[in-house]
């Protein structure tokens, strides 16, 4: 690393042994500093707000907001914090879902610690990284991340829209900016290939996405 700055990493994993294993591996590299540990997705969001890490090394299976949903919210609120998924799942659906939600890289937990460091470096520099198995899986099936199913956040926003909430109201309800809501809204329309809000509402009702949004909590 040419600069003296260390790469600040937050590890989010609900398994303490794995967390410690990763940390002790990363501690061997002087240019990487583990600034925090989070056991849930929610905790990762909170800690990141205070510590502003460069990279979040995110597991998928976590209680209280899983890694995928947490990644989406990072993308929404702290675009400068890059999320690198570190998971046991080599299933394509997980990988494409992670990418749709804005993850910058995806590595499997059984890769060597050296590869983890390579991935962290690549993502820190603004690139993307997939461990060898993952890129093969992605290559095998061309899947454009612009279409496909809605993310959890998009689904929540569509439900709120369907129930007649304004952008401003949705933004306040979910504690995000109105512009973010607008972006989500654009993405929803593109994914479902529907141009009007009335069309969105109709689609949601016809496909069973209707119920009280009062139960819905912001993340």
């Amino acid at each position: 690393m040419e600069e003296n700055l260390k790469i600040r990493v937050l590890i989010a994993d609900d398994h303490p042994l794995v967390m410690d294993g990763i940390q002790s591996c990363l501690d061997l590299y002087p240019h990487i500093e583990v600034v925090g540990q989070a056991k849930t997705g929610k905790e990762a969001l909170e800690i990141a707000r205070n510590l502003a890490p460069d990279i979040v090394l995110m597991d998928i299976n976590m209680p209280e907001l899983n890694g995928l949903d947490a990644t989406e919210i990072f993308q929404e609120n702290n675009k400068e914090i890059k999320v690198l998924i570190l998971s046991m799942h080599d299933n394509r659906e997980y990988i494409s879902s992670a990418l749709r939600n804005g993850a910058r890289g995806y590595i499997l937990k059984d890769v060597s610690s050296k590869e983890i460091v390579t991935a962290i470096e690549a993502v820190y520099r603004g690139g993307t990284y997939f461990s060898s198995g993952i890129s093969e899986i992605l290559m095998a099936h061309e899947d454009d991340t612009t279409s496909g199913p809605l993310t959890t956040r998009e689904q929540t926003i569509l439900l709120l829209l369907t129930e007649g909430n304004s952008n401003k109201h949705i933004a306040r309800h979910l504690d995000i900016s109105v512009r973010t809501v607008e972006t989500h809204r654009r993405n929803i329309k593109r994914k479902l290939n529907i141009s009007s809000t009335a069309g969105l509402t109709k689609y949601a009702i016809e496909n069973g996405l209707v119920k009280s949004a009062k139960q819905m909590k912001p993340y």
Partner: protein
Amino acid sequence: MLSTPAVFNFEKKQSSNIMNLRQKILLLATVPLILAVSAITLLVSYQAQTLSKEEITSFRRNMLDAKKSELLNYLRLAQTSIRHIYETAGTNDAFAKSQVRNILNALTYGTDGYFFVYDYNGLNLVHPKQPRRVGNNWWHLTDSKGDKVIQNLILKAQQGGGYHNYYWEKPSTGKIAEKISYAIPLAKWKWMLGTGLYIDNVNQQVKAIENEVSDRISQTTVIILIITLVSLILVFITGILINLHERRLADEKLKQLTQRIVETQEEERGRVARELHDSISQILVSVKFAQELSLTKLLNKDPTVQSSLEKSNDALHIAIKEVRRISRDLRPRSLDDLGLSPALKSLAEEFAERNGMKLTINTVAFNNLLPKEVKTTLYRVAQEALTNIERHAQAKHVKIKLSAPKGVVTLSITDDGNGFKTNYATTRTNPLTGIGLRNMQERIEHHNGELKILSSNRGTTIRAKMPKKLLQTNSETSLSA
């Protein structure tokens, strides 16, 4: 009707649904019976009443006709017995008149049969049973009903002869009774000759018949009621017997099912245990040996320690992969993490990769709207269907479609293989055939959904529909970890 709840829903028999159906069937059997019987009873008694009324009327008419012709005969007799005197006598022949009166006075028949003679002015000339009337004028006499008896009789006689009904004292009983008389004129003398019969006994007979008829009608009604009661009891007993039989059948099926579940569970556990033992623990043992070897080499400062450490690392890598495979085979995590659509996509992908069939899949844009058990059920249905297709169908194309039109979640799996006989696969008698299909059916029905299997020699479609109310959009599921 009772036999139609066929193969698939024997599980339902336990539920209250079927009890209601039973009650409905009983109702269906009894209500029409009761209605029909009531209608028949009413109709029969009404008809019997009309019929008997007609019969009684005609009986009465016949009796009266008989009486009337009897009367005529008596009168002819009387005429004959006085003819030789009357025809030769003159208009004022007092001797002939008294002879005739004597003859008629002596002429009686039966207990109450006699002849009476009045002149046209109402003066009684002959009355053997009531001699007090003779010699008096009875022109204004009325009977108990107000009929001017003598005037009317005289009128009938003056008209050439006729019947007249009225009330008169019956000699044998001394009581007033209805009477029918026939009066003819002895015109030369301006006399009226008549005789009458009491018809109170006719009325009595009619009454007796009427009583008998109404007795018989009520008897018939009672018989019909008894038959109805017996039929109703029979219906109920049959219903209860069928119920018991069905329940016993259902119990038996349930026992078989439980046994099958236990067997499947054991089989599955055995498989998992075998896999854990055969692959994972063997690999871990090899890791342990490699580690021990490395440790020894490290102590001996053997330079090949690195390669044996690498070897153990590689083995661990394989172990991790194995665990991942086994756990995914048991239950795909993606079902919980990502939802049914992605899990189905993975399933479809693996399937297509494994056997090279062309597979298209259409899913919904929404995720995690279904409760966990329903997701699992639908996933297992798809898994079972794909397994069937792989094993038996010899299909080239498979289509999976998951949609939620108007909130009714529908999953369909279609192939273009050679199909199967749905009856055969789900037959009741052989518990070994179609366990998979039946299992699917039971799983779906548990959530009040319905599973349809359409199969022909051009392919098979399996369609599962889940009820609307299953969809949920609360944060718990949409944010589930």
